[in-house]
């Protein structure tokens, strides 16, 4: 029995749900994350999660808004691997803003157009305040060293600022005060190559990788250990590939992670090659194969006789009819295994990498013939092996011929981890020689439940660096970009207010819309203030109230000193020192060793997606639930059956 159910939304339940959902994850924002237990009362299982993405994933939301959020975050995570917390927080904050607007009687159409305008303003601020990654690494950020060079810098600065200010004046629209943007413009110049040239100081720490180290540090966002691993991986990759170090050189597909439970976290390290965990039996084969150049075969799919390629339809009703009884012959599987092993031996293949699973029997047979079978290999690893060994991935082992087999692979026992419980495991390093090699980041923890979070953190850091190099630009971190956006949104509010005052006589719809516009933009800015203060609260050093006060004070003093362009950043630096690094998680005594930056594309995309979700939910007034049994849901409140 099918039926459709319509739920009437009074009070806009959807926006309330969205805001409530986001509320759960407030403590996951910023560098200081708190772990959460997610418990399944039915089965008594529980999971430990600290990233927004993992929590949403394990919550198994069934309501429409929850599902929409889940889909949005999954799509974001798939591409960016970071920024989901920001996305969800702002979706929550702006849905509260939208609710507030509805309570004040602002129509949905007005809210939408004003919020879109607000988003345009924020995107514009991001674009204009973005800092090029070029030459970023060579800036001295400790102010005492910088002072001695001030003079020279200013000289070279003079020329460029004149030119660039002139050009940027051209772009200025009249209504938005762009003076504030000069900070970034000056910063850009301060950090430009000119400065680098005038410096005769000792060369940077890593001569071949000047900026990556610095950028990575600025993007660690509290995950210093994970970021250290990322930097190591990048350096190792570039060394292996013998390429000259330029920006977009961080090929993230060449990085794999391997998690080892049971070891303390300090044991995490970066290893050239691809480290996998193997059973004792297979480790013995690996031991036998050490220090040899091996022929390698790559298989896309499972390695078993019953596996068929995607899209193959099996016959259901097949009866095998025979005219005589044949007891001597082997089973089909045995026959297949024998055939495959014979083929592999003929081709002298010693190593097989499989993207899927292998059947028990074939692994055993291969083991006895000293052929190493590695299962569940990532597609990117297969691709790398294909490129560097000359092998071509095939779907069936029977397809293998000489030209599809690669050579030059190596196997090395990396570490014997001893027996854990019933299984014993050995970490084995597989590599395709030095060319086009892979790097494995080994992550360790004594606590099994934490491994997932550590792995996520590592990937978040890796992708942050990856996106920074891809964008070739960064945003001011530690809430400063948000502050700039708030400032510009409030400027616009001011502008609308003044215009309303001017034409107070004519009460046309246009001005009415403008009045609303101011209110909506103010509420949007408040969402961003909420964001900054929540991050501050999460550092554990502020109460909600003091955090908000600090933010509004800074905004005010910022507004008061518009003439001095550099005021804002100075203010922030000052403030961070005083308040013991508001946003960054610093060890005491190390007041500020590095700048903090955010990713440009990640932030823009997260904000836009957050607003998209809010606008979609805001415009939705009913749910149509398909396939509802009349008995099960008809009793529910608010559900109307068609």
């Amino acid at each position, binding site marked *: *029995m099918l039926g459709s159910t319509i739920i009437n939304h009074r009070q806009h339940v959807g926006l309330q749900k969205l805001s409530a959902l986001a509320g759960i994850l407030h403590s996951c924002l910023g560098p200081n994350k708190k772990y959460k237990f997610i418990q399944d009362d039915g089965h008594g299982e529980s999971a430990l999660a600290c990233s927004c993405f993992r929590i949403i994933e394990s919550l198994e939301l069934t309501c*429409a808004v929850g599902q929409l959020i889940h*889909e949005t975050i999954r*799509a974001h995570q798939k591409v960016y691997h970071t920024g989901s917390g920001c996305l969800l927080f702002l979706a929550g904050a702006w849905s509260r803003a939208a609710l507030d607007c509805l309570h004040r009687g602002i129509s949905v159409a007005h809210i939408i157009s004003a919020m879109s305008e607000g988003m345009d303003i924020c995107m514009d601020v991001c674009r204009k305040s973005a800092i090029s990654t070029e030459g970023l690494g060579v800036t001295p950020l400790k102010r005492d060293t910088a002072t001695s060079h001030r003079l020279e810098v200013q000289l070279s600065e003079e020329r460029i600022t004149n030119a660039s200010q002139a050009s940027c004046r051209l772009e200025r629209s009249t209504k938005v005060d762009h003076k504030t943007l000069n900070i970034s413009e000056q910063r850009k110049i301060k950090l430009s190559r000119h400065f680098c040239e005038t410096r005769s100081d000792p060369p940077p720490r890593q001569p071949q990788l000047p900026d990556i180290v610095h950028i990575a540090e600025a993007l660690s966002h509290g995950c210093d250990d994970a970021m250290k691993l990322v930097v190591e991986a990048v350096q190792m990759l570039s060394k292996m590939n013998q390429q000259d170090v330029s920006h977009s050189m961080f090929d993230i597909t060449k990085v794999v992670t391997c998690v080892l439970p049971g070891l303390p976290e300090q044991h995490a390290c970066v290893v050239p090659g691809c480290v996998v965990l193997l059973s004792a039996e297979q480790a013995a084969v690996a031991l036998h194969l050490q220090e040899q150049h091996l022929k390698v075969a790559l298989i896309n799919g499972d390695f078993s006789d019953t596996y068929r390629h995607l899209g193959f339809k099996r016959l259901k*009703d097949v009866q095998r009819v025979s005219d005589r009884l044949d007891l001597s012959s082997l089973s089909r599987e045995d026959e297949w295994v024998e055939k495959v092993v014979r083929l592999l031996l003929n081709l002298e293949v010693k190593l097989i990498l499989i993207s899927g699973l292998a059947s028990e029997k074939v692994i055993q047979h291969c083991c006895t013939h000293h052929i190493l079978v590695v299962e569940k290999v990532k597609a990117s690893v297969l691709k790398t092996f294909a490129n560097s060994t000359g092998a071509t991935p095939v*779907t069936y082992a029977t397809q293998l011929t000489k030209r599809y087999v690669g050579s030059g692979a190596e196997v090395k026992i990396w570490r014997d981890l001893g027996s854990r419980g019933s299984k014993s495991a050995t970490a084995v390093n597989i590599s395709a020689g030095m060319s086009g090699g892979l790097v494995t980041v080994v992550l360790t923890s004594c606590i099994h439940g934490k491994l997932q979070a550590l792995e996520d953190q590592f990937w978040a850091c890796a992708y942050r660096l990856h996106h920074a190099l891809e964008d070739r630009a960064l945003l001011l971190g530690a809430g400063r970009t948000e502050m700039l956006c708030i400032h510009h949104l409030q400027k616009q509010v001011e502008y609308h207010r003044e215009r309303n005052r001017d034409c107070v006589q004519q009460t046309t719809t246009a001005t009415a819309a403008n009045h609303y516009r101011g209110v909506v933009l103010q509420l949007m800015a408040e969402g961003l203030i909420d964001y900054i203060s929540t991050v501050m609260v999460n550092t554990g050093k502020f109460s909600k109230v003091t955090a908000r006060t600090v933010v509004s004070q800074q905004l005010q003093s910022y507004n008061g000193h518009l003439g001095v362009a550099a005021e804002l950043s100075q203010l922030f630096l000052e403030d961070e020192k005083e308040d013991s690094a508001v946003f960054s998680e610093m060890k005491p005594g190390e007041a500020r060793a590095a700048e903090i930056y955010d990713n440009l594309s990640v932030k823009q995309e997260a904000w*836009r997606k957050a607003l998209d979700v809010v606008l979609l939910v805001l415009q939705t007034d009913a749910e149509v*639930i398909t396939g509802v049994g009349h008995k099960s849901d008809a009793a529910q409140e608010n559900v109307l*059956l068609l």
Partner: protein
Amino acid sequence: MMSRLVKKSPSLCTDLPLDTTDICNKLNLLRQLLRSCFGPTARLKQVHNNIGGHVVTTSSSSVLLPAISSSQPFINLIKTSILNHVSRFSDFGLFAAIFCLALIEQTKQSGLRGNVAIRVNKHLLALCSSYLQGEDCGCKVKLDFCSSHNLITLARSIISSKPACVLTEPETLHISKLTVQAFLLTVPCSSPGTVSLGKVVTVTVEGYSVLNSAVFPGLLVDMPDGLCLNKVNYLSNPLQMVLFSSSLAGDLSELGDGMIEVHPSVDTESQILDQLLELGKQVVADEVKLFVCQKVVHPVLQQYLRSHGIIVVERVGITVMEPLIQLTGAHPVATLHAKIPPKAYGKVQGLSMRQFGSKTMLHLQPLGESAICTMVLCHRNETMLSELKVVCQKTEHVLRLTLREPSALFGGGCTETHLAAYVRHKNKNEVPETASVLGCSQTEYLLGVEVFCRSLESVARALQHDGGYSLIDLTHAHHWTLPADVMEEHMEDSFGLCGCGLVESSPSKKWTYIDTKYAEFSPAPLVKDCPIQPRVLDSFIAKLSALQVATETANLALDVRYIIQDVS
């Protein structure tokens, strides 16, 4: 076989179904649901299964109506007839549904006898149709194919009426231009005799800005493993290609159901594979360079073909088959058990790879002129992208309909109010005659006219969702809107333009709220050749059909005396 244990329960018979409150409530609910989806400021609906399935956010009738299933035959009757209209004309599904439901509801409320209402509705429908189709119709514009302006306006009116696409103004314009461009590409330039239109194939790319959307002449097909094709770019001579519609997966899927008996020593799979490789050999010998299959190609055959320098594209799907045939001139091969006849091969001019976000696609350029083009649509998330795809396909279809009848109606509710005013005026002098022809009293006839006109006007009013007011001007009978918060004394200032953007407000104009009685008048035609172009246009054919479908469905519903339901 066991016999049935449950006794068949007697059928349920409902007398005069439209008089039961349950059915009336459900029809009213459906009307409210669809009414709130109407127009550019519509409210959206989330369609989902409540157990964690995919959520679709939409306001399109073509997505929403199939999701609605009801135990009530009335709902299903209306739903089916609207969906049938949508499948033929794409646009105005919601219009038809709202008008139909309003007509049923208003007739019931007016207390008019069912058979009288049916006759009056039929008469008025004929009146409207002939007026709209006539030369002197005051709410119609001729479409001029010399300029794309009106076509873009038409496209834009449709696209901007679907807020679930979440488009900004520049994005809306960009997509409108693209759909018009795609439509124009499907019209062949230089083929004498019967002209057959080409096709637009839509490809979607998620996670990319809308402004990255583009239209390409030729066909783009997905190549998931683009890495095998690095050397394709330079191919530019005519290439021989073959197209398979049957699966080449190496299975026996075509056999159908039933038991098969096989000798144990027979290996069917390897026999089919041999057959496939035989096919591969012929293809190689015939110098085919591009091998396309609608379904799966066995990896071994793929390997064989690739090793001979042939580009293999598998799983292109049924929707691309027809355009592929048109583009290449190939005849799809449906079997692997016979030799490929030489005339089955097709040709392409050139191939190149195109990258769109995460998608790698092979671009097939036609040999000579072809009316096939590909529209790549990008959007930030899946929900908005799927709505955008639906809307673009609909727009393309509507643009196509303009070739049959190069006219468009005023949009923004102006056609509805204009038509209502026309019907009221037209009937003023002919009440006695028409009433006697229709076999009813004059009062009944006038009541029927009022029901019909109010239902029409209620559709125009359905464009308002934020508590605003709908008005009609007393010269041209166009539709005007006022936001809810406008003060009475400032009313005149608040009108800018009418719904379709053709009439400007002026101090001499008089307005009245829709739903208030006004003295009938003859809606004045607009000055011919006026320089102002309408801002919102509606498809002529689709709206005319929607009007007919709605009236006829309402008449059928009003005619139902009993519902007999088999409840066992």
